[in-house]
C-alpha cells in the first residue's frame, strides 16, 4: 500500500528547496570598516567646501523670505494671506500638509523598515530622519501662524486659564496638535539615539586630532558612550523600543491629518478612503524628497559604494508602489462619487477634473500617477539624473494634490451662493518659497556637522561583517 502511494505521486518532493537568490551587497567594493569611518567622518572633518558656502548663502537668502513674510503677517494680520471666504484654509494648510507628508519617509525608513529588517535602510535612514525633523519644522510654521494671533497659539494646548478656554477634543484639528507634536518628539529622539555611537566616534577622532572644543561638543552629546557590550545592549533595546513607538506614528500622523478633511462634511473630503490614501501619498512624497536629497549628496561626496544602485532601486520601487496606490485612490474617489449617486459628490469630482482648477488637477495626475510609472523600467532606475528629475515631479505633484483637495472642495460646496475662488497673495507665495530655504539651511548644517550616515549600522551590514564571509563563496569579490 505504502509502496503504491509513493509510486502514484512521484512528482511530490520530500523537501522543497527554493532557489537561493543572491542578495545584493549593501556596500560595494568590499569596503573596510575604517574606509566607512574615514568616508563619513571625512565629510565633517574636512575643510568646508566652497559649494557648501554658496548653497548656505542662497538657502539663508531664501529662508529670509519666510522670516520677512511671517514678520509682515504678525505685524499686520492674517489678512495679508490669500485665504478668504469660502477658502479659509488656503495655502498655509496646503503647505502644512505638504511638509508634514514629506516627513513620513523618515519614520517609515527608520521604524518600519527597521522592524522588517530591511537592511538597506542603514545608508539612508540618518539623512531621511533629519529630513523628517526639518520638514516637521517647516510644516509647524503654517498652522501656528494660521491661527491668526500667534501669541495665543498656546490655546491649542489644554492649559487651565482664567478665560476658561478649553479645547474641543472632538475636533480632528486638536488631534492634529498632539499627533504632530508627538511625531516631532519621537522623530527627534529616534534620530538622536541612533546617532550616539557615531557622535562618540567623532569625539574620539577630534580628540586625537587635538580639537578640544569639537571633541567636547560631540562628547557631550555622545553622553559618555564607550562602546561597551552593556552600552550596545541598552542601545539596541532603546532603539528597538523607539522603533516600536514610531511605527504606529507613521500611520497615525497622516491619518489624523486626513481626518482634518474627512471628519468634515464637505463634498470631496468626507470619504473613508482618506486615511490610507493620505498615508500612501505621504510616503510617496517622502521618498520623492529622500531621492531629491540623497542623489546629489551621493554624487558630491562620492557615496556610490554606500548608496548603491540597489538602494536607489528599492527607493524607486517604494515610490512606484505608493504612487500607484495614490493613483488607485484617485480613481476610486471618482468611482465612489458615481456609485454613491450623491449629486454633490459627483459634481465635486467632475468639477475637479474639468472645473476652474482643472489645470491643477491634471498637474497632480501627471506628476503623481504617470511619473512613478517610469520606475517600472530598470533603465530609468539606473539613470540617476532621470530618477532625480522624476523625484522633483513627485514633490511638485504632491503639493498640487493638497492644493486640489483644499481649493476645489471649498470653492464649490453645496450652495452656489457660497461659491468663490481662491488665489494666493505675494505674501503666501514668499512665505512658502522661504520654507525651502529654512529646510535647506537646516539640512546643510546637518550634513556639515553631523554624520550623515549611520556608520556603526552600515558596518554591520557590510559583506565583511558577515561571519560566513569567504566561506560560502558568496562575497569573494
Amino acid at each position, binding site marked *: 500500500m505504502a509502496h503504491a502511494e509513493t509510486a502514484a505521486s512521484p512528482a511530490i518532493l520530500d523537501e522543497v528547496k527554493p532557489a537561493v537568490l543572491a542578495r545584493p551587497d549593501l556596500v560595494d567594493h568590499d569596503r573596510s570598516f575604517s574606509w566607512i569611518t574615514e568616508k563619513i567622518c571625512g565629510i565633517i572633518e574636512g575643510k568646508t567646501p566652497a559649494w557648501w558656502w554658496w548653497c548656505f548663502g542662497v538657502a539663508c537668502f531664501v529662508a529670509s523670505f519666510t522670516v520677512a513674510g511671517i514678520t509682515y503677517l504678525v505685524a499686520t494680520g492674517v489678512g495679508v494671506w490669500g485665504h478668504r471666504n469660502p477658502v479659509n484654509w488656503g495655502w498655509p494648510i496646503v503647505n502644512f500638509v505638504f511638509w508634514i507628508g514629506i516627513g513620513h519617509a523618515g519614520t517609515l525608513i527608520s521604524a518600519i523598515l527597521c522592524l522588517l529588517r530591511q537592511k538597506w535602510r542603514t545608508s539612508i535612514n540618518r539623512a531621511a530622519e533629519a529630513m523628517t525633523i526639518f520638514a516637521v519644522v517647516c510644516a509647524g510654521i503654517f498652522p501656528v501662524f494660521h491661527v491668526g494671533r500667534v501669541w495665543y497659539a498656546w490655546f491649542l494646548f489644554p492649559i487651565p486659564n*482664567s*478665560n476658561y478656554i478649553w479645547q474641543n477634543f472632538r475636533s480632528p484639528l486638536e488631534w492634529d496638535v498632539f499627533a504632530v507634536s508627538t511625531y516631532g518628539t519621537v522623530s527627534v529622539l529616534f534620530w538622536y539615539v541612533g546617532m550616539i555611537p557615531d557622535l562618540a566616534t567623532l569625539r574620539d577622532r577630534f580628540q586625537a586630532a587635538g580639537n578640544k572644543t569639537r*571633541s*567636547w561638543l560631540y*562628547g557631550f552629546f555622545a*553622553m559618555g558612550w564607550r562602546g561597551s557590550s552593556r552600552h550596545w545592549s541598552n542601545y539596541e533595546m532603546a532603539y528597538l523600543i523607539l522603533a516600536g513607538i514610531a511605527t504606529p506614528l507613521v500611520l497615525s500622523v497622516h491619518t489624523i491629518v486626513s481626518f482634518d478633511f474627512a471628519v468634515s462634511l464637505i463634498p470631496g473630503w468626507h470619504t473613508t478612503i482618506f486615511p490610507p490614501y493620505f498615508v500612501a501619498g505621504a510616503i510617496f512624497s517622502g521618498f520623492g524628497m529622500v531621492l531629491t536629497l540623497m542623489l546629489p549628496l551621493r554624487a558630491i561626496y562620492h557615496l556610490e559604494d554606500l548608496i548603491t544602485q540597489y538602494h536607489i532601486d528599492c527607493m524607486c520601487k517604494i515610490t512606484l508602489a505608493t504612487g500607484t496606490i495614490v493613483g488607485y485612490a484617485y480613481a476610486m474617489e471618482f468611482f465612489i462619487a458615481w456609485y454613491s449617486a450623491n449629486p454633490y459628490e459627483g459634481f465635486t469630482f467632475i468639477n475637479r477634473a474639468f472645473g476652474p482648477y482643472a489645470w491643477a488637477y491634471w498637474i497632480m495626475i501627471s506628476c503623481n500617477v504617470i511619473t512613478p510609472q517610469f520606475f517600472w523600467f530598470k533603465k530609468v532606475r539606473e539613470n540617476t539624473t532621470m530618477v532625480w528629475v522624476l523625484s522633483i515631479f513627485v514633490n511638485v505633484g504632491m503639493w498640487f494634490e493638497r492644493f486640489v483637495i483644499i481649493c476645489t472642495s471649498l470653492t464649490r460646496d453645496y450652495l452656489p451662493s457660497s461659491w468663490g475662488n481662491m488665489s494666493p497673495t505675494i505674501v503666501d507665495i514668499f512665505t512658502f518659497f522661504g520654507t525651502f530655504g529654512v529646510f535647506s539651511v537646516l539640512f546643510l548644517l546637518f550634513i556639515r556637522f553631523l554624520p550623515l550616515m549611520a556608520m556603526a549600522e552600515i558596518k554591520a551590514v557590510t559583506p565583511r561583517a558577515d561571519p560566513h564571509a569567504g566561506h560560502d563563496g558568496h562575497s569573494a569579490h
Partner: protein
Amino acid sequence: MSNIFPKSANKLPLQIILYLVVLGGVVTAGATYYMTPKYTRVGYAPVQPVPYSHALHAGQLGIDCRYCHSNIEKSGVANLPTAQTCMNCHNQVKKDSPLLAVVRQSYETGEAVPWVKIHQTPDYVYFNHAIHVNRGVSCVECHGKINEMDVVAHAKPLSMGFCLDCHRDPASHVREKADIYNLDSPTIAEKSGFAAAHQFLTDRNIKPPQSCSGCHR
C-alpha cells in the same frame, strides 16, 4: 578618550528631572498667582480727580446707586453722573469745599469731570449693563461692596472665567428685584434656598448664554 562627564554625572538625570519638576511647579504657581486677572486687575484703585467716597454717599447716607448712575436699568452702558447731579446737593452742602472745585468747574463749563475708568470690558466683548441688573444680578456681583469703599477699587477679576462662573451657575448669584441695589443683601439661594433660586430662574426664563457668540458677537 577624555572624561567629559565626571562620575557625579550619573546622578544628573535624576537631578534634571527633580529640577524640572520644581521649576515647573514654581512657574505654574507663579503664573497662576501673578499672571491672572485675580492679581493683575483686582485692587486697581486709581486716584480720581475728586475724592468722592462711595462709603459716605452710598453707605452712610444710603443714596441709591440709581440716583447718580441713573440709566443703568435702561442702557446697555452704565453712565456716570453729570456735575448737575452732584450740584443738586452740593450747591447747598459743602458748597465752598476746595475738594469740589473740579465739580463746580465742570458745572460751569460743561466739560465732564475727568474720572478714571476702573471697570473696563474689552472691545470684543458685548456686555449689556441693563440686562444684568434687570434680571437679578446685583451690582455687588461684579463691583464688590462699593458701599464700603472710600476709594473705588477693582474688586472682582472680571476675567472670562469670572463671567462664566455666573453664566454656568446663575442660581447661586441671582437676587430679588428689591435687593439688586442693596449691596449687603443675600442672594435668593442664601435667603430661601436653591429651589427658590431655580424657580426664580424658571419663572423669568433666565438662561445666560454660554456659547462664544453670546458675548463675542
